[in-house]
């Protein structure tokens, strides 16, 4: 059962990184570490996608010396999807960091437990 996992070690590493990022997102108390965990999770998904487009023995999909046959290049479509994903990931990070700054201005703490306690006192 484990032989497929060892042959595709890239995908296994992507899965481990996803789990580490997800655990960070859910279990950390500090807001900034949650955001870093979300970024690690995003990177793991992009690694998995790009690994699926890689074919052993072929090279970068840029036409050099007029070689235009399809057999000499890797699959370029997953790379296009990941490119869009990276830019969306930075937008989401910027949005969440600005929300963190507003939360700090209101509650003066970055700890999620304390913010929840303060919210309960306010009656929300």
């Amino acid at each position, binding site marked *: 059962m484990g032989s497929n996992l060892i042959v595709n070690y890239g995908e296994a590493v992507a899965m481990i990184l996803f789990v580490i990022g997800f655990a960070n997102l859910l279990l950390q108390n500090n807001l900034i570490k949650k955001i870093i965990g979300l970024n690690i999770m995003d990177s793991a998904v992009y690694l998995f996608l790009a690994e699926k487009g890689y074919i052993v023995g072929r090279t970068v999909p840029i036409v050099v010396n007029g070689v235009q046959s399809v057999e000499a290049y890797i699959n370029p*479509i997953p790379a296009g999807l990941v490119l869009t994903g*990276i830019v969306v990931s930075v*937008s989401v990070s910027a949005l969440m960091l*600005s*929300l963190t700054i507003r939360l700090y201005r209101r509650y003066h703490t970055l700890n999620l437990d304390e913010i929840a306690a303060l919210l309960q006192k306010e009656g929300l």
Partner: protein
Amino acid sequence: MILDYRAFDTFGESNVLFVATITVLVLLHFNKKQSKAVSETQEISKRQAKEAALDRSFEPKNDPILQCVAKFLVPLILIFGIYVVLNGHLSPGGGFSGGAIMGAGLILYLNAFGFEKTERFFTEKTYKWISFAALTTYCLCKTYSFYCGANHLESHIPLGIPGHILSSGLILILNICVGCVVTCTMYTFYVMFRKGDF
């Protein structure tokens, strides 16, 4: 690839950048004149004014090392960014990476020389007009495929010789549009976080 075969995905992604910028603007924009007129809590506006003043006091005040290095590096970074954007269809790079590199160059300029020098060429009006023009050009350029693609009409855009910089139809123009939008977005994120105003 992402500008011809999956151009709609790239349009949607420019949309995501636009929405993120608007949200950051709404959350972090601090307008001194307006906050005196609106009856906000006195404490919050005073604290924001103090933060803005504190941030301005952290400006380099002619830090010599940073200014020497920035005088040398910023033109190099901007030229490299423009090269990456223009050569998107011939070598690795394209709109997004070139735009991010140019945005980083502008951020370095802002850090080294302060807000007053940067406001000479990049104000709120600049950002609005560049974003609007770039996104509209992208939208108009790609509507031709609604007419040619499904109806089997001929597309009259010259394709050129592969390997030259003016080849491959509309990809060059789309790269420039995407590069402009990404540059403005990255710079706006940084300025909103730092000062709250352009």
